[in-house]
């Protein structure tokens, strides 16, 4: 499909017990672009998302990331490859501080193991120092630097969302997958979220988001994939998708 595609989804199908959640879906994610996956409820967006992030294995088809097939990999292995994700309902480590959440996000980029922890050698202390500095930078990037020592479970929802994104960025991903990042945010927060996503793209990170908020999606996306009932309905730029008849009838006709 695409030369230089960062992520390629080839003819992926998945069914659960007799329900075909996805059928023969293909598309390519271009590097350093913002992609959105949209579609009516039950379209298969979350299933596709979960397949990309390693939660499910497709029944057929392949997923290629940076020219490596990843559809059989475990969730935690994909992070080392360069894929990070957020959750629809925000899954923070609530008893940890804001800073500590981001520190855990750096897990795959740090090395200290059991013996290193026990020995607390100088390289371990150095790694810890540098990790904290990087974590503070990330918090600054999303605007949470003043809340670093707060218990993350006590944060307001909008800030928790930002923290989750910072945590995902901490693993230095090439591909960031956002699961309905605008859910539960008001108009102002959504606009700020859009700006943040664009800032992330400017850092060279490719973003794929599943979203229901059409304003946000149309505004920031470079390319949009539309799913309906598990099948690929349309794919293209926002303008192309907006004027696509099949898309309109899928949304309005339901």
């Amino acid at each position: 499909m695409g030369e230089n595609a960062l992520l390629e989804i080839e003819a992926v199908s998945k069914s659960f017990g007799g329900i075909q959640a996805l059928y023969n879906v293909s598309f390519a994610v271009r590097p350093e672009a913002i992609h959105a996956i949209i579609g009516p409820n039950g379209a298969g967006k979350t299933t596709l998302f979960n397949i990309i992030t390693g939660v499910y294995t497709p029944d057929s088809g392949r997923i290629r990331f940076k020219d490596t097939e990843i559809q059989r990999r475990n969730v935690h292995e994909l992070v080392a490859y360069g894929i990070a994700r957020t959750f629809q309902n925000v899954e923070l480590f609530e008893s940890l501080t804001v800073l500590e959440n981001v520190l855990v996000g750096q897990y795959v980029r740090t090395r200290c193991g059991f013996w290193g922890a026990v020995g607390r050698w100088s390289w371990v202390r150095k790694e810890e120092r540098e990790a904290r500095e990087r974590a503070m930078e990330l918090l600054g990037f999303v605007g949470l630097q003043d809340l670093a020592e707060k218990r993350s479970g006590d944060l307001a929802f909008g800030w928790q969302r930002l923290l989750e994104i910072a945590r995902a960025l901490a693993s230095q991903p090439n591909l960031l997958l956002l699961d309905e990042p605008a859910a539960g945010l008001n108009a102002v927060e959504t606009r700020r979220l859009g700006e943040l996503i664009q800032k992330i793209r400017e850092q060279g990170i490719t973003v794929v988001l599943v979203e229901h908020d059409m304003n946000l999606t149309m505004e920031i996306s470079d390319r949009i994939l539309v799913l309906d009932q598990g099948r690929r309905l349309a794919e293209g730029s926002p303008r192309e998708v907006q004027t696509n008849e099949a898309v309109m009838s899928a949304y309005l006709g339901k």
Partner: protein
Amino acid sequence: MALGSAARSPFVIFAAAIVLVGAGVSNSYYLQLLTVIGIYTLLALGLNMLMGYAGQISLGHAAFYGLGAYTSAILTTHFHVSPWLALPLALLLSAGVAFLVGIPTLKLSGYYLGMGTLGFGMIINVLFREWSSMTGGASGLVGIPPLAWGSFVLSRGRAYFYLVWLTTLACFVLCERLVNSRIGRALRAIHDSERAATAVGVDTSRLKLGIFVFSAVLAALAGFLYAHLVSFISPSSFDFLMSVRIVTMVAVGGMASIWGSLLGASLLTLLPEWLHVFAEYEMVVYGLLLMVIMIFLPQGLSRGVIDLFAQRHLLSSLAKRLKG
């Protein structure tokens, strides 16, 4: 780093306290009691790392305690191995068993792990009771040799008090370092949300197994120290009720609190001393304690009290802000 020197001082104070108490107490009964508290603290510490920090339940921890005790006892009495050699063997065996048991059971969570460890604990207890040729069966194993350094006998009075407490202190330091490290954070992350921990790249299965083995090793160490203190062990010291006692120490003292292990172990060792009719009411007391603490103070006494203090502080500072 500032964190290093600040964290060292509670341990220095604690070490000083150990030296002072050891020097000050001369009544041999009290010395033995305090020594036992030290052993139980070690037990509680190990389980706390598993339950409090990583959030995994073990209802059969007495099995590892027993494995440490019995392995060393059998090696030193039947095979005349030096206790100092028996120790690493006992720890290795415990680690190996924990590894094998952990692989299948840690794949599951919550209740399944609880039941799996409960069942495992029972099997090991049956082993202690049935393999009479080695373990002496239900009547137990006698004649466990004391620990000695050359001709100096350690398993007695003040010497053993120091041995046990210095071991416990060393493990405190070890655990504190573990908790405040990349590994410790990852464990606490698993406790809060295993799903999210996996999503940030933590190999949760491996970490859980690792901390399970670690806690088993600490329990085995406690068992070793116990066996050579009392010189006679029997399966009834390593049964389900003992596992419950260890869980209670952790729950009452404070989950995810290293000092909580000390608090819990102390309280639960001293309780029978204070309540003379305790033997009859022991189960009722444990049961009530567990339920009440879990319902009202799930963080345990040490954390719960700290939280209460923190809240009061919060309230009063809020009040000041509102007024001024």
